C-alpha cells in the first residue's frame, strides 16, 4: 500500500495504490487524519483507481474520513473505484454519505 497526499486549492487528494486491508487502513487513517487536522480542507478526494485489493477495512477508512471531514464541515468524494472495490462501496450504502466522482 502506498499513499500520496496532494493539496489542490482547498482540497486534499489522497491517492492510494496497492492493497487496503485492516493492517494498512490503520496507517492510512493516521496519515490522512493528521493532514486533515493540519490543513482543514473544504474537501477530501479519495482516489482508489490504483487499489488492487480492498476489503471492509477500506470501507471503514472511507466512512471514517467522512466523519473526520464532517467534523470540520467538509465533504468526501471517492473516485476511481472499480471491480470488487466498487461493489463493496455500493453494497454498504457508502454513497449516501460520500460523493462518487464519475469521470
Amino acid at each position, binding site marked *: 500500500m502506498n499513499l500520496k497526499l496532494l493539496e489542490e486549492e482547498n482540497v486534499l487528494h489522497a491517492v492510494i495504490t496497492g*492493497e487496503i*486491508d*485492516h*493492517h494498512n*487502513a*490503520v496507517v492510512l*487513517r493516521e496519515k490522512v487524519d493528521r493532514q486533515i487536522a493540519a490543513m482543514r480542507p473544504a474537501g477530501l478526494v479519495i482516489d482508489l483507481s490504483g487499489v488492487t*485489493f*480492498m*476489503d*471492509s*477495512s477500506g*470501507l*471503514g*477508512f472511507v*466512512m*471514517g474520513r467522512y466523519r473526520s471531514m464532517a467534523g470540520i464541515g467538509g465533504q468526501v468524494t471517492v473516485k476511481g473505484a472499480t*471491480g*470488487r472495490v466498487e*461493489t*463493496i462501496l455500493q*453494497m*454498504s450504502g457508502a454513497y449516501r454519505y460520500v460523493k462518487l466522482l464519475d469521470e
Partner: protein
Amino acid sequence: MKTVNFVRMTLPAKSVNEAYARVAAAALASQVDPTIEQMADIKTAVSEAVTNAIVHAYRGQEGGLVYITMRLMEDGSFIVSVRDRGCGIGDVRQAREPCFTTAPSEERSGMGFSIMEAFMDKLQVRSAPGRGTTVTMTKRLGR
C-alpha cells in the same frame, strides 16, 4: 465429497498476516484455474474472516493464533475455514446483520459478514462465547 488437495495452517493473530492468509488462499485456489473474479472473491472473504479473528476475537492481544484450513474438492469447490480461540460471539444472527459492529471506534463498518456472504456461495458461522469462532465458507470455482 473427496478432498483433492488441502492446506492446514496456523499463524499468529497479527495484522501483517491478513495479507499472508490472502496469498495462501489464492495460491491453493489457483490450482484449479479459477477466474480473476473468483480469486478476488476468495481473497476478500478470507481477508474479512482473518481480520475478524485479529480485531474481534483476540482484540489485538499478543499470542492469539488463527487456524486456517483450505480444501479443494473433487467438484471444483473451494472450502476455507478460519478458526480462532478468542472471545466468541454471543448472538451470531445479530453479528451477521449488515452494519452491525461492536468496534465502531476502530472504524469497523459491520460489513464483514455481509461481504463474506455476498462473495462466497456459502457461509457458516459457529461460535461459543469464551471458546472461539469458526467461519466456514464455500466457493464453487471454474468457468
